């Protein structure tokens, strides 16, 4: 019944999807947190940059960003990201870079809404014992903000997992690329679609469940 899967490395393709997701998730969490810090910082220039970045990047389709990173960054400006002749590696790195740049805008906004849930008194108390801006943010505000936005961040992570399929546009050998190949070569289109849909659900469902459980466990009691 599943003989149409023979000769195709479905697991390998999904492994690539997982790698894209994990690297992009870590990167966008870091960059998104920095952006959120900029957006609440007392320095107008940083606030301006953060606001402009988020509003520009989240309004550009991911496909445009990924295709531009390949055709623009790599082909025209010659950016190689340390992968000179290996186009598989270069494609992967460009895809991660684009996914980080794009997803970070959403991470930033989630975290910023989390910062808004932390009562002002927390930051005032932190400043009153002599903590500076960055300590107040790192030690008091962000830890509480993160705990209140684990749910929304789970949404972002699930969207990111599915967004990795856009990397197919620049030929990264992840799940959607393989699906396209298989649909071209095999007759069982519906079955192929079902297999890949199921694959993504298997990846994302636990993410949502585990993070939902974490969100409850780590909630800050007031």
């Amino acid at each position: 019944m599943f003989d149409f899967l023979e000769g195709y490395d479905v697991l390998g393709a999904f492994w690539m999807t997982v790698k894209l997701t994990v690297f992009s998730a870590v990167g966008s969490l870091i960059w998104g947190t920095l952006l959120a810090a900029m957006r609440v910082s007392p320095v107008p220039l940083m606030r301006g940059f953060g606001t402009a970045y988020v509003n520009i990047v989240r309004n550009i389709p991911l496909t445009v960003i990924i295709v531009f990173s390949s055709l623009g960054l790599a082909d025209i400006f010659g950016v190689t990201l340390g992968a000179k002749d290996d186009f598989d590696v270069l494609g992967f790195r460009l895809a991660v870079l684009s996914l980080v740049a794009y997803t970070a805008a959403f991470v930033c906004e989630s975290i910023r809404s989390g910062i808004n849930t932390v009562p002002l008194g927390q930051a005032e108390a932190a400043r009153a014992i002599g903590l500076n801006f960055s300590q107040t943010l790192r030690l008091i505000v962000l830890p509480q903000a993160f705990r209140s936005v684990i749910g929304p961040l789970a949404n972002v992570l699930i969207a990111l997992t599915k967004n990795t399929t856009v990397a197919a546009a620049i030929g990264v050998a992840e799940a959607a690329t393989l699906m396209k190949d298989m649909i071209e070569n095999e007759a069982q289109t519906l079955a192929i679609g079902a297999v890949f849909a199921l694959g993504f659900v298997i990846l994302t469902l636990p993410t949502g469940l585990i993070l939902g459980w974490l969100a409850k466990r780590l909630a800050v009691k007031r």
Partner: protein
Amino acid sequence: MTNVSVAKEDVAATDELVVLKSVNKHFGALHVLQDIDLTIGRGEVVVVIGPSGSGKSTLCRTINRLETIDSGTITIDGKPLPQEGKELARLRADVGMVFQSFNLFAHKTVLENVMLGQIKVRRTDKKQAEEKARALLDRVGVGTQADKYPAQLSGGQQQRVAIARALAMGPKVMLFDEPTSALDPEMINEVLEVMQQLARDGMTMVVVTHEMGFARSAANRVVFMADGRIVEQAAPDQFFSNPRSDRAKDFLSKILHH
């Protein structure tokens, strides 16, 4: 504090610890502080009272620059309040603050709340910080709650932890911004007792409060504010038995007779 600096302060700074000179502040159109002149001596306990909206909380918050001022000067121990930045953070460490709503760090245990400033601001090593924190928690009577989170404590206990957190920095002056206003009546006394003990130990304190009993028993001086001005200041006995201004008489008649 070293002996040298004590000797120097005795001579040079006389005994003025906090000095506000013609301080003005607006919230939009509201002139919330109008030409405030106030001097607080070392070891003095000053209680600020007055009707709601008279600017007493704002006054308290300007002293560690949680509120900025529009004009005038504030000096602490002879040094003017610095602008935002490292200098200001250092100064704030020397000025303890206790809030109406406690503001304990909700994601940290009671012990961590009291240790944090020592470790991150004073750069005390962990063991020493913990020792001091436990001693302070014992002193305010919540030593057994050290490993709990703030939300697991009663309001009175939380406020006493907040006092310990401020004391852990070894402040020169303590500011209390309506420390008992958010408490259930039966918890007010446990906090006031801690504050009274502090006053007896010679801590310089500025206390914004509605607790007239505390003002009577612990204050060296009562400052009465109304409509953004200091209307009257006097020793507590004199103020409560024989207020000079009509505004103070009116205020006292409303709160003392029932």
